[in-house]
């Protein structure tokens, strides 16, 4: 395409340009941004509530597991500390497995 044609097209575009400068448009954009902010805040609150509910729901399970581990640890400490030699350690390990697997609160 020639330079003349290019220049003609540019002129057509330039002549058809409008001056679009309204305060109402800026106000509308600000209103949309305000809505986005409210949605974002709502999302944060919803996430916090969901995390709290999740923690509450998981609490009994966590408590159960911790109890089992502590019972196992105590058994290991009692048997392990008193026993001397391989038989003592074997007994301690057996007691620990028993405590972890079968002993429930």
């Amino acid at each position: 395409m020639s330079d003349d044609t290019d220049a003609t097209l540019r002129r057509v575009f330039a002549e058809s340009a409008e001056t679009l400068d309204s305060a109402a448009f800026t106000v509308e954009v600000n209103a949309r941004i305000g809505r986005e902010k409210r949605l974002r805040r709502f999302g944060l609150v919803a996430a916090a509530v969901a995390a709290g509910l999740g923690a509450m729901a998981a609490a009994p399970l966590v408590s159960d597991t911790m109890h089992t581990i502590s019972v196992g640890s105590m058994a290991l400490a009692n048997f392990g500390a008193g026993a001397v030699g391989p038989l003592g350690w074997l007994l301690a390990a057996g007691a620990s497995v028993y405590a972890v697997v079968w002993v429930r609160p």
Partner: protein
Amino acid sequence: MPSESRVTLVTLSESAVVTLAMAGNDAAFSELVARRQNMVRNLLRRLSHDKASADDLAQQAFVQAWKNIRSLRSAEAFGGWLRRIVVHTWLQEARKSQVQTVSLDETEILPSQNSFPGVRMDLEQALAQLKNPERVCVVLSYNEGLSHAEIAETTGWPLGTVKSHVARGASRLRELLSAYGEGS
């Protein structure tokens, strides 16, 4: 927004206002909307078929810019970055609504109407005949004055594709505009 801070912002350079907006200053972002709305709305009016949807897309583009302004690399890059958001907002909307251009066989080319300045109406109708990629490339080239490389960067399309879209689109636009000239 207090009028005092608006007065202060008006006196600042654009990069200073962009820097404030990047730091989370909403009044500064509002000032950017006031300064750039003419470019954004004119660009989208060239791309869209009607003014109402063009302005709606312009608002969406500004909201996208507000959401992502912290990811802007430098304040000086704001103009090109905003233009990329505008173009991608329009392309996304065009894909979503499957905007179809009306072929010349289906519609009669109307001469200029009294309610619009002739040249604007002619250009709007001629642009509406182009395929979406051609329209974007032609508008960015002739309305925004971007080079082919800048158009490729803005749209994310290969340089060769951009060049052929500009050449085909401009040639078609020239034909259409001369047809309008003969009709009016």
